[in-house]
């Protein structure tokens, strides 16, 4: 043995040395090491500080349950806090730092908390820090927040990628130890689709850590043989480095595969981690059992660790936790560790067995039966132990085993609870249904032979169960020992959160008797290991303090995540600009050519304005409005929802959906329609055209397109299935552009084939198929949102950019100008047309001034509820126009309105400004507002309250139609 690296054995690759840094110091480890094993091999045990008292802490476990040895791994944007040293596969160039200490791990000022720790009992903060009142936020809380927390997380974007995927299988096996391998083998040989997942880098589970014998070979060799067979089968998927973190309804499992956490940087084509949703017809829980600590004085001094962990470091990683070891146990595991350590040449001082009697094989190591460790000496490293009989034993490491807890967390993610089994002194699974069964030690089967047989049974979906190989069993016997009562110093139940054995009885004494209350009051079980190591001890101590049984106290609720999961994995590739897909219109390229500034509108990118030179948005939009109102403008309106409605009952269907009537609409004509929700509130509006007796083209607002479609599907399928009507979204089929302005007709006429666009053949609200550009079939609608003489032209999407360019060319002589939705918005506000600001899900047709559209001759969605008292109330807010009293003032959307002489208060509130625009036509700011009893108040001067911008002024209420009230321009 050189230092603490054992001379022989282990699964590490002695030919590959890896350099790494911990707290700035360079160390060397071996391929196959974890960071924890490499540090232990370098005689580094102090790896972290605890949460509350900042106690020095070393590694406790050798797996994912580790509560103490948490480090900040990597640097810069790849830095990740709280990473378990026990799960970090060593790679060359690894950089890690200890955390929750200042200024250094060795000298941590926070450890002063320990001195006043007598006061810091469970719940102390609920009883103090209340005076003076202002001190909590200014003084106490900032100090607590700074001292609390664990690692420091990066605030920079992660340079690595993540992926998501779905998987399906007949059988998923969680855990690849003896049980899991047998289960997978049984299912795989019958031809079933099998997934075998294990959180470790290597498959084999405990067989990699323990000295076992199966089928005449070592456990490791047997496992390698089974894994090779499984790997050769096309119906088997092996998933090492994959943690099943949660069980969800209908046997869907969430999992994270750590694809590239074991390398310095992933390849550019591969993700760091991959998130899986595994849909398993059946699953087997074969994750084994977790060893428990014993609660005794100083059970947290670096060098004290679980017995299983100590022998794992020796057997698998060839790392000795010490040179002279004491074992403290209440079951056979301690003996196993003593034997293994002795075989590795480590001196074992004694086995302290809390039981008066035991038959376990100590292989010549001194056994102190009925012994108790009351204290561990040493601050940052074990120097010895003190026993209840005041004897002292010098040593540099302590192995402890308080018994075993089946790892069943996943099985209780859907609400069931485990039950206490006295025989193994652990909570074992209850039946949660045939789709998810526990096997092996996860089911409380503590002998290797039982595990192999149980795994084979659980994995047999059809046909014969495979033969069970013979093996050597280690006897299992345990007598509970939870808490060494005469402990000197602190005895920890929850290491990371510093909950001690005394906290739980105190919680009970104060009334927090329920395990859930005790957990919340003491924080035991709430650390990053979620109580994997400490919860059973906490339950036992609480049971004793309150005179209840283990089952009466019960467990806290098991919940995802089995181990913590990175945000990145769950977010997958949908981050940054890829958070949501981008939806582009068929005229996007044309708009880009015209210099459009795009704006996110839902998922769409819409052209917002088309600046020239150094115009800002207002100058650009104003110019676009003037050009359109004086000459002609072209606007992309492709995002409006378009739904093809066909069938013999299409007209009847529309009659029932809209509050106004569509059955009377002539073929070749368009009509504005208003849809209500069933509660009588306005849902959506748009222009719908009749293309044939049994064929309509409905348009919806951009925002509501999908909801209108769902609504139609619901109404048809759930209410009116007898109607002969078919409908499909054709939004994406058409590039649609508005051509508006006095020169719209002349511009369009230049590209239309044959037809003449005069008022006789193409009057206002005409809607017809035409031919353009010498043979392209298009649809032309004479409708207007801007208030100008305007058309909307729809052409098949792939031709959109070409047609838009042709129109620009045709209109060039008239000064055609592209305009965006800013200009569109200005023009609709000038015209008093309602849009999103007014169609806000709380307004009625009456509020919008559209009450007359509501037919009284037919049934339609929303008709009845619209008649309720509250929806007819004359004091409801209705749409009005508003202008500043002083034409130089700028009014702003979101301002509230008060009576001219009222002081601000909610009670006096009269409404608010819903939409605002600078009107280049009227040379002032103007808007639409929702005002109580608004239609009766045209001409009234109101106070405009804009408290968030601290700008207040007066305004005049007017008709919503600010511009061209006679609609003359429609017919220019």
């Amino acid at each position, binding site marked *: 043995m050189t230092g603490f690296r054992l001379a022989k054995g282990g699964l590490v690759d002695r030919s590959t040395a890896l350099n790494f840094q911990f707290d700035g110091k360079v160390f060397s480890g071996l391929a196959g090491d974890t960071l924890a094993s490499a540090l232990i091999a370098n005689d580094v045990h102090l790896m972290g500080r605890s949460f509350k008292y900042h106690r020095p802490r070393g590694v406790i476990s050798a797996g994912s349950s580790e509560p103490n040895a948490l480090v900040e791994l990597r640097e810069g944007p790849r830095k990740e806090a709280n990473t378990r040293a026990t799960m970090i596969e060593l790679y060359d160039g690894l950089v890690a730092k200890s955390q929750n200490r200042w200024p250094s791990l060795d000298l941590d000022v926070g450890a002063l908390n320990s001195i006043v720790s007598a006061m810091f009992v469970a719940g102390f903060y609920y009883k103090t820090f209340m005076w003076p009142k202002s001190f909590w936020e200014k003084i106490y809380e900032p100090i607590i927040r700074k001292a609390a927390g664990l690692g420091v997380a990066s605030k920079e974007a992660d340079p690595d990628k993540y992926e998501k995927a779905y998987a399906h299988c007949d059988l998923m096996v969680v855990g690849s130890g003896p049980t899991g391998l047998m289960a997978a083998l049984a299912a795989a040989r019958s031809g079933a689709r099998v997934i075998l997942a294990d959180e470790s880098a290597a498959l084999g589970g405990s067989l990699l850590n323990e000295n076992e014998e199966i089928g005449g070979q070592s456990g490791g060799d047997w496992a390698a043989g089974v894994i090779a067979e499984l790997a050769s089968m096309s119906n088997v998927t092996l998933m090492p480095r994959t943690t099943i973190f949660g069980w969800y309804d*209908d046997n869907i499992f969430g999992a994270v595969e750590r694809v590239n956490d074991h390398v310095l940087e992933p390849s550019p084509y591969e993700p760091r981690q991959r998130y899986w949703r595994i849909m398993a017809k059946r699953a087997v829980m074969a994750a084994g059992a977790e060893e428990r600590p014993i609660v005794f004085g100083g059970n947290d001094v670096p060098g004290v660790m679980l017995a299983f962990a100590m022998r794992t470091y020796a057997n698998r990683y060839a790392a000795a936790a010490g040179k002279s070891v004491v074992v403290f146990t209440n079951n056979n595991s301690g003996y196993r560790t003593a034997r293994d350590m002795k075989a590795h040449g480590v001196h074992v001082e004694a086995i302290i067995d809390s039981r008066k009697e035991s038959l376990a094989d100590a292989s010549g190591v001194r056994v102190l039966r009925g012994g108790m460790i009351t204290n561990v000496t040493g601050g940052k490293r074990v120097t010895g132990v003190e026993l209840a009989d005041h004897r002292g034993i010098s040593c540099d490491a302590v192995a402890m085993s308080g018994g075993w807890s089946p790892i069943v967390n996943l099985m209780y993610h*859907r609400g069931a609870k485990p039950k206490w089994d006295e025989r193994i002194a652990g909570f074992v699974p209850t039946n949660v249904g045939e789709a998810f069964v526990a096997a092996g030690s996860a089911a409380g089967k503590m002998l290797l032979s039982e595990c192999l047989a149980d795994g084979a049974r659980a994995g047999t979906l059809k046909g014969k169960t495979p033969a069970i190989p013979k093996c050597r069993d280690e006897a299992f016997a345990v007598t509970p020992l939870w808490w060494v009562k005469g402990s000197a110093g602190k005895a920890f139940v929850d290491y990371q959160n510093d909950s001690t054995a005394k906290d739980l009885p105190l919680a009970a004494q104060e009334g927090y008797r329920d395990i859930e209350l005790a957990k919340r009051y003491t924080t035991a079980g709430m650390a990053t290991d979620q109580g994997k190591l400490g919860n059973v001890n906490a339950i036992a101590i609480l049971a004793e303090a309150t005179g209840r049984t283990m089952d009466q106290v019960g467990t806290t609720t098991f919940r995802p995540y089995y181990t913590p999961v990175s945000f990145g994995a769950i977010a997958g590739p949908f981050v940054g600009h890829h958070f949501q897909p981008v939806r582009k219109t068929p005229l996007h390229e044309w708009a880009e050519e015209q210099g459009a500034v795009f704006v996110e509108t839902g998922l769409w990118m819409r052209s917002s304005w088309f600046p020239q030179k150094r115009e800002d948005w207002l100058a650009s939009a104003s110019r676009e409005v003037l050009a359109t109102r004086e000459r002609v403008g072209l606007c992309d309106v492709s995002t409006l929802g378009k739904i093809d409605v066909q069938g013999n009952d299409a007209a009847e269907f529309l009659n029932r959906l809209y509050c106004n009537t569509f059955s009377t609409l002539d073929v070749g004509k368009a009509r504005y329609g208003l849809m209500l929700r069933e509660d009588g509130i306005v849902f959506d509006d748009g222009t719908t055209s009749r293309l044939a007796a049994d064929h309509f083209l409905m348009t919806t607002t951009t925002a509501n397109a999908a909801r209108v479609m769902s609504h139609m599907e619901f109404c048809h399928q759930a209410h009116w*299935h007898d109607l002969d009507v078919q409908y499909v979204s054709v939004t994406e089929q058409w590039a649609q552009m508005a051509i508006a302005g006095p020169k719209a007709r002349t511009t369009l006429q230049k590209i239309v084939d044959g037809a003449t666009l005069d008022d006789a053949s193409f009057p206002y609200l005409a809607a017809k198929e035409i031919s353009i550009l010498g043979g392209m079939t298009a649809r032309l609608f004479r409708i207007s949102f801007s208030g100008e003489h305007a058309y909307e032209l729809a052409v098949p999407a792939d031709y959109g950019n070409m047609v838009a360019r042709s129109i620009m060319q045709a209109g060039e002589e008239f000064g055609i100008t592209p305009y965006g939705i800013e200009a569109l918005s200005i023009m609709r506000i000038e015209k008093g047309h309602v849009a999103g600001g007014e169609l806000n899900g709380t307004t009625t047709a009456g509020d919008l001034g559209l009450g007359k559209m509501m037919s009284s001759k037919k049934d339609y969605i929303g008709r009845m509820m619209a008649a309720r008292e509250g929806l007819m109330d004359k004091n409801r807010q209705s749409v009005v126009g508003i202008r500043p009293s002083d034409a130089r003032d700028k009014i702003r959307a979101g301002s509230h309105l008060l009576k001219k002489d009222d002081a601000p208060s909610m009670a006096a509130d009269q409404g608010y400004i819903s939409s605002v625009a600078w009107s280049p036509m009227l040379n002032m700011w103007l808007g639409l507002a929702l005002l109580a009893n608004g239609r009766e108040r045209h001409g009234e001067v109101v106070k405009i309250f804009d408290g968030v911008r601290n700008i207040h002024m007066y305004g005049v209420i007017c008709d919503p139609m600010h511009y061209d009230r006679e609609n003359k321009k429609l017919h220019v």
Partner: protein
Amino acid sequence: MRINCPHCGTRPVEEFTFNGDASVQRPASNDPKTMDQWFDYVYLRDNPKGRFDEYVHHSSGCRAWLVVTRDTQTHEVFGVVTARDHAKKRVKA
């Protein structure tokens, strides 16, 4: 949670949108005397702990509206029919 869409087969819950109690039925009459029925239909909901019939839209699949019978505590799905068949059956009954 997975739902067996009669048209598409079994799909996970992310493909579906829920719209609640399917026991409600849109009244046939517009007579103001039926206001109580309308109020019940629009606003009151069966909300049992246990077996529940609900409207579900296969919004990211075939876009059929379904009536799913499901346990609201265990989320177990007992049965699925299309809303169309559900409505037809109700007319007969």
